[in-house]
């Protein structure tokens, strides 16, 4: 199934006029055209001075969408406004994982967004670290920017897997927002703060 995401933001220009920026990503085809037309209609009703359409992340534009844009262009001109298409696209941050051995303790560092954007890309590799006999795993969240319930579920699978093999897991130095989510979900007792080598030594002795 095709997928389309429309992000619209509006700001007031210095002279009191309104500018609307609409970023489109995905596929603009027959199955997604209605969403697009609805959004453009809503926007035109507000009569912004300028509409900027960012289309670089679109991989297909259906002919019906071009007709809709033509109509929008004319509607903008009718009230003295304008419609501009630009090819700007900001690359979104991704998720990376690094791992190393610290004298028998596996340190797995998660960098970026542990949410719907990245969990599936690292899940298998992440869980392998918990599958050794009697594993000791330190999950380093010091460079994690996001953690959703999807990421927490992956973490729980790892914790359970390690525990089933006689192992232990700790979460190292989570950033304050991530720590807050972990505490809210009931995982405060897994959080460890300090220098990795010292925490690892404690983990080896647990």
């Amino acid at each position, binding site marked *: 199934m095709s997928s389309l995401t429309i992000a619209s933001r509006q700001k007031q220009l210095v002279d009191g006029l309104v500018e609307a920026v609409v970023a489109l990503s995905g596929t603009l085809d027959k199955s997604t055209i209605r969403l697009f037309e609805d959004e453009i209609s809503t926007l035109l009703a507000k009569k912004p001075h300028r509409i900027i359409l960012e289309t670089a992340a679109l991989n297909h534009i259906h002919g019906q969408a071009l007709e809709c844009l033509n109509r929008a262009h004319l509607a903008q001109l009718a009230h003295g406004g304008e419609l501009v298409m630009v090819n700007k696209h900001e690359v979104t941050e991704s998720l990376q994982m690094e791992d190393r051995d610290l004298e028998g303790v596996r340190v797995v560092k998660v960098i970026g967004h542990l949410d719907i954007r990245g969990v599936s890309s690292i899940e298998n590799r992440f869980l392998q670290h918990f599958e050794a006999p009697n594993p000791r795993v330190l999950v380093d969240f010091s460079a994690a920017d996001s953690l959703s319930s*999807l990421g927490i579920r992956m973490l729980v699978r790892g914790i359970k897997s390690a525990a089933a093999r006689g192992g232990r897991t700790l979460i190292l130095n989570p950033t304050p927002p991530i720590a807050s989510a972990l505490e809210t979900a009931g995982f405060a007792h897994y959080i460890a703060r300090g220098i990795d080598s010292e925490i690892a030594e404690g983990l080896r002795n647990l």
Partner: protein
Amino acid sequence: MKECLTLRIQNSDHAIASALGEATSWFAGLEIPAATQYFMRLAIEELGTNWMKYSSQASHADGMGFELLLCADRVVLRATDTGPAFNPLDVPPPPESLPPEKRDPGGLGILLLRKMADRMSYERRASMNIVTIEKNR
């Protein structure tokens, strides 16, 4: 006029991921604490995935809408969809007697939103679910 970002998503992981990317880009130009930014992205993902999993086919065709509004003292997220009535505030919390790793993972996202939001409300209006979540700046 307040700073505002509106997002329309369709029924796919990719669409939610794109929406999170757009929210991240929008936040980048504003002075909002990292914790608030993170919470709002969390809310978009948890409400979006909940809608994907449990809402109706007709609602999926309509798409789901998010509006992020920057106010002087807080950030407000309003999520709307045309699915069957669903009030996230009615979802019972998981039993405290069980350790978290032994609980049913269902409902964890909603629990995070309810506990971490400064204010959260639900209304059913014109056959739409409207969830409003606020986080102080």
